């Protein structure tokens, strides 16, 4: 099987969908001749032309708003934010115009908003944020957070074919860090289904995005210590695969909730409530969280390293949990 980086996988999925459906087009800043800030659309302009690869002024609200309007006319826009942080500028269009359209007047908004999120690249407070919860908390939006190249390709294709607005968060630290074999042929990965990234018996590490890799490293180390940790990769945050979470915790009776996003109001809270509601009786220990602290993402390396959840922090909590 050919191999691809996380970035190439997204690029392939997007490319294939544009080849497949003439209504799919890309819109954003510097996505054309330049090929996008992270080069995800490199070569698209040459292949699909300026009609289907639309360079815009620096106007995130207009990019998302225009995508919505185009979707009403039967097109399938894929909008790019140069950094997920700038989605704050398009907030109204996403959470009010797009999210509520189907509910209030029955008009679907089949758009995808691609946004590179997450830290670990020395981006500082405004190029490293994890904005997922603003949108997970907005009924009407779907939020997808692939951790692997395979899923990234399969999910971008599903997102483009989905008839609801999808926020597709690409973890920028993974773009070139991971390289995997991915199948030659056409495939998709369903939105809304979690994946057991590693089977385990003693505790469940529930996570998503780049933290899946941290969890897997930790699980490997824990195995050596005789602790069998299951790693659940949520893959999609909205809709949330609550069944998969409950099933895993029901099996292991211990839950460690892990995310790179800041703590208060992060997804771990929702997961904790959901676990308590569904499998409380199976819990043998408190639900624990490993997350970033409630601060902006600092720039300087020692601070950013302390900010990001590390394998060590996961190990400490996991050992505590296993002993409990």
């Amino acid at each position, binding site marked *: 099987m050919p191999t691809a980086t996380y970035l190439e996988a997204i690029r392939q999925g997007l490319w294939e969908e544009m080849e497949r459906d003439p209504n799919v087009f890309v819109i954003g800043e510097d996505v054309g001749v330049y090929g996008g800030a992270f080069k995800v659309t490199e070569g698209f302009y040459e292949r699909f032309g300026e009609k289907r690869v639309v360079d815009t002024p620096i106007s995130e609200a*207009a990019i998302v*708003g*225009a*995508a919505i*309007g185009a979707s*009403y006319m039967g097109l399938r*826009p894929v909008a790019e934010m140069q950094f997920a942080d700038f989605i704050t500028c398009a907030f*109204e269009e996403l959470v009010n115009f797009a999210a509520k359209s189907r509910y209030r*007047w029955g008009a679907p908004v089949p758009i995808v908003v691609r946004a590179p999120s997450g830290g670990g690249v020395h981006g500082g407070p405004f190029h490293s944020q994890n904005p997922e919860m603003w949108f997970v908390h907005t009924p009407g939006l779907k939020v997808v957070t692939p951790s692997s190249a395979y899923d990234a390709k399969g999910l971008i294709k599903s997102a483009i074919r989905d008839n609801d607005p999808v926020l597709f968060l690409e973890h920028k630290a993974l773009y070139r860090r991971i390289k995997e074999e991915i199948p030659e042929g056409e495939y998709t990965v369903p939105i809304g289904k979690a994946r057991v990234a590693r089977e385990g018996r003693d505790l469940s590490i529930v996570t998503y995005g780049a933290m899946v890799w941290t969890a897997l490293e930790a699980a490997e180390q824990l195995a050596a210590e005789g602790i069998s940790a299951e790693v659940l990769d949520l893959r999609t945050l909205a809709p949330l695969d609550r069944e998969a979470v409950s099933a895993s915790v029901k099996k292991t009776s211990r839950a460690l909730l892990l995310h790179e996003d800041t703590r208060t109001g992060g997804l771990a809270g929702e997961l904790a409530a959901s676990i308590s509601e569904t499998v409380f009786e199976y819990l043998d220990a408190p639900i624990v969280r490993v997350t970033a602290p409630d601060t902006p993402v600092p720039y300087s390396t020692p601070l950013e390293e302390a900010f990001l959840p590390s394998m060590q922090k996961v190990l400490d909590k996991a050992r505590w949990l296993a002993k409990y």
Partner: protein
Amino acid sequence: MSATQAIPTGQREEAALAHKCLYYMSLMREMEDRIERKLYRQGKVLGGVYVGRGQEAISTGVALVAQPDDVLFPSHRDMAAFLIRGFSPGRIFAQYMGRMDGATRGRDGNMHMGDLNHKIVPIVSALAATVPVAAGAAMALKYKGSRNVAICWFGEGSTSLGHWHEGINLASVQKAPVLWICNNNQYAYSTPLRQQMACANVADKGPGYGLPAEIVDGNDVLAVHEAARRALEFVRSANGPYLIECKTFRMTGHSAHDNAHYVPPELFEEWSKRDPIKRLEARMAAEGWAEPEEIESLHAAILKEVDEALAFAEASPLPDPATLTDGVYESQ
């Protein structure tokens, strides 16, 4: 013999247009009077109520020139656009009353209505948020090689929003086929024009976007119609966006609960003399386009139509609470 036969051939068309305009403006006026002065006070319509009293010429004059597949983005004082696009008065009343026969089946209220089958996209509350959406719809029409265009209405106060700026600029850079219609009624809620912008006209903003802009008397429906006709030719011929600023006045409070104490009374007096409906009737009489009886019977017919529509709406069921969570996503 009926008046229309007496009309010199050269004027037949204009006379017929005038009749149409009078009908839609008067229907809108009557419906909004019922909503604001009856239904709202009776508690049959809840929440915010915004009417276009005195501004009927703007949605009427423009919507009558639009082609059936042009996509409309009316704002909150443009009811005639819905009527002209075939929204029945009963459906509109039902919308205001939160009934199942309303355009949003009770999910949203008042002018927040639309229907892709009628090629009308509803506003959200956030002013000017539709402007980038209209720009995108226009870009899509161009993408598909359609000759249709988008038409988007907004008030002068809405031009202060970032969304307005970004949408107008994007459409201009993209040469998207969209006609921008500004109702400059000189107030935004209680805020007068001079506190909204430091230029005299909304049209003055055109050059900053390479956007051709013109000013028209928004209380003269035939003038609005003619300006829109020319503008649509321009836009349709792939020349890019065009802006028409319609000077008018809001002959009411901002919404049903607002008595507009902040508006100098003399402004109301002055502008009442320019009421678009009265003006059109006078013109029609002067030109011999209509006999007084015709106009009377038109109004009588409207009263009847509105009574029936109201009865329809009041008979329409309220939504079933069991449907509360339906349709947030496709798979529901």
